[in-house]
């Protein structure tokens, strides 16, 4: 029996009272009283912190690729031929934006305690994610049909690398969405572990980042190819 959605939105901040460098309250003792105690497992807010840190690392990875492509394009002797991105990428970009919007809707449903609405919008996001990935594969197929391969030109090589790396990150997001959806319908483990509220928040953070990253990369292709 799944838990009611409204019961599982944990106040992550309260769990943090025990940690993080504030001067200890001299009043509390071994009973853990006076509002200062330590969770047995990972504090809920730490999942958000971890995700923010991970996004920093992922950003550096993509910035390295973007910088490499900018340098490659501008260096003397470069045989860079600008690539016109396949038109289907406009559709996949719209799908990415739509998936972020459905996710926002799902989160609102979650906060309102509307379980069936949450599940519907949450899974819609995952489906849109799968559609996005299918669209990216179609874009590759279009290029291959036109005889444009990975090694045809550095601009194409970078295009394939960008889309593959982004697609893998988005695939990870789809898996996370499906896992949370499955947990939501089959019940969550008791603590210690991530709470449903934190899980949805962290997954949403990641998903919006991946959407934003795609819009950035698509703009980059359009501007410089």
């Amino acid at each position, binding site marked *: 029996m799944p838990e009611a959605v409204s019961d599982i939105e944990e106040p992550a901040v309260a769990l943090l009272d025990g940690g993080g460098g504030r001067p200890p309250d001299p009043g509390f003792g071994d009973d853990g009283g006076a509002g200062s105690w330590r969770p047995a497992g990972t504090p809920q807010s730490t999942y958000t912190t971890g995700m923010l840190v991970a996004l920093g690392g992922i950003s550096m*990875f993509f910035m390295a690729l973007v910088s490499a492509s900018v340098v490659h394009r501008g260096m003397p002797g470069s045989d860079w031929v600008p690539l016109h991105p396949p038109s289907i990428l406009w559709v996949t970009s719209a799908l990415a934006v739509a998936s972020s919007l459905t996710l926002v809707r799902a989160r609102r449903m979650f906060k309102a305690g509307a379980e069936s609405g949450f599940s519907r919008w949450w899974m819609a996001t995952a489906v849109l994610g799968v559609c996005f990935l299918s669209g990216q594969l179609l874009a590759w197929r279009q290029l291959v049909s036109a005889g444009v391969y990975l090694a045809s030109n550095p601009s194409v090589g970078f295009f394939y690398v960008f889309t593959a790396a982004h697609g893998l990150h988005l695939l990870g997001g789809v898996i996370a969405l499906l896992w949370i959806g499955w947990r939501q319908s089959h019940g969550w483990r008791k603590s210690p572990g991530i709470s449903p509220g934190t899980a949805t928040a962290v997954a949403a953070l990641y998903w919006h980042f991946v959407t934003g990253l795609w819009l950035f990369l698509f703009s980059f292709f359009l501007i410089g190819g």
Partner: protein
Amino acid sequence: MSAHGHTVHVPEAPTGFIRKYVFSTDHKVIGIQYFFLALTSVVVGMLLSVLMRFHLLWPGAKVPFLQGGVMTQAQYLSLVTMHGTMMVFFVLTTAPQAGFGNYFLPIQIGAPDMAFPHLNMLSFWVTFLAFLSLIAAFFVPDGAPISGWTAYTPLSGIGQASGPGEGWGQTMWIVSISLFCLASLLGALNFIATLIDMRAPGMSLMRMPLTCWGWFVTAVLTLLAFGVLLAGGILLFLDRTAGTSFFLPAGLVFTDQLQPHSGGSPLLWQHLFWFFGHPEVYIAILPGMGVASHVLSTFCRKPIFGYKAMVIAMNAIGFLGFVVWGHHMFVSGMSPYSAFAFSVMTMAIGVPSAIKTFNWLGTLWGSKIHFDVPMLFALGFVSLFVSGGLSGLFLAQPAVDNLLHATYYVVAHFHLVMGVASIFGMFAATYFWFPKMFGRMMNPTLGKIHFWFTFVGAYCIFMPMHFLGLSGGIRRYADYTAISYLQPLRPLTMFMTYAAFVTVTAQLIFLFNLFWSLKKGEVAGKNPWNATTLEWITTSPPPHDNFGGQFPSVYRGPYEFNVPGAREDFIPQNLEPSQVAMGAQS
């Protein structure tokens, strides 16, 4: 217990062998796994260096287990590559941060474990896979790669045609390093999240031990640098396997074959590599700086001089480490204006480095130094950091670097400042924390013998190497017998080689001491060094949750030694102000 804590019910420790010692999520077990992985790697790396030194003196001599009997030039270069890779990644990156950091960061901030224990376990096993992949490069057709630990393109990007080891061996190298990058990124994420969110009540950032600051800044550098190397590694892999030309220009001819690439830039690889590679130097040394500071304060029985300045200097070193990568590429034909900018930024690193050095000396000044083994190695660290760092100021000048770049001067510089100094930091950490990790003391007499052999030995190897470099001794050559102007320096080379043999042999003392002390060492109490930080308030070794459910609160900074009015000459961080006059043991 005189200090206040709070009770928490934590999960039971795993009991089965596999969950407890192999696929463990306990940060202490994972720290020890990293430690022994690094120990294995350093033994392999040292043996490779012995073979190299042997070959440099006697290039025609037979090596018993080597294919073909006599070492070829390609085999020599493969040793250079594998020695560098093994030491930089699997020793200098692994032991100080992933090993000791994993074990002690949570305990020193009063946490029960890392923020993400399963991710932590995954980090270790991916690192282990990376290690196996690198070792496998020895056993593939044509053996290990010859392109150096920097894997410069185009040599590393072509494949089999560019020479022995550049086929499967180089591919295994790239797979290994890419896996290592992934594992390091996961580890860095864990370190940062743990330190930000899981500090004990009262453990403000400015009450953290300097070791924690070292691990934190290192984790940030790791997070920002390894993603860049991973990106470069993927592009290099595609150049080798998919026919792309990210790093490969047109017109390359290897072994009489025109290569089917065009438009790529070998310099692009250098930029990506060194954008990672220079922060990597600080990834190796910053944890050692933290350990040296920590140990100096403890064995001087004196607060660290200028704690805040030390923290700022560490952060400044971390920041500046990201804007100086071009000084590795002065000879690449870069614009003199770029070279000037990189030169100025490089010399600027001397400022926070000098702050740290003067603060270490300030800590020593007027103190009653306890010359225990950890202290000897911490002093050795300071000495080697200064000796190795000074030559960096000369190399920061493009005009000087153009002359010295391809010589042994550079080899001597980075071995002293990055290699040996970091290793001394690790030795200090090992002798200092061994009692906490294993509940027994290491033998101090053997430790002191080990120190003197290693300290004197390191200088005997690397100080003459500077002169060899200044005299035009070119690095990476496998055989110098045909270079007439270097023949008068042969006695110097012999001296360095014999010093290397003696120094390497002296490490057997350390290995014996380590394994002997695991079983036979004197039993250590909770706090054998009368130290102040939180790892010393728990049992040796600590329980599964580090504090037996009694989690500490923190009331003071990490280095309160010889405080007037206190009963003892040290005040643990968790001692309440009202208890200070009664002392830690009351």
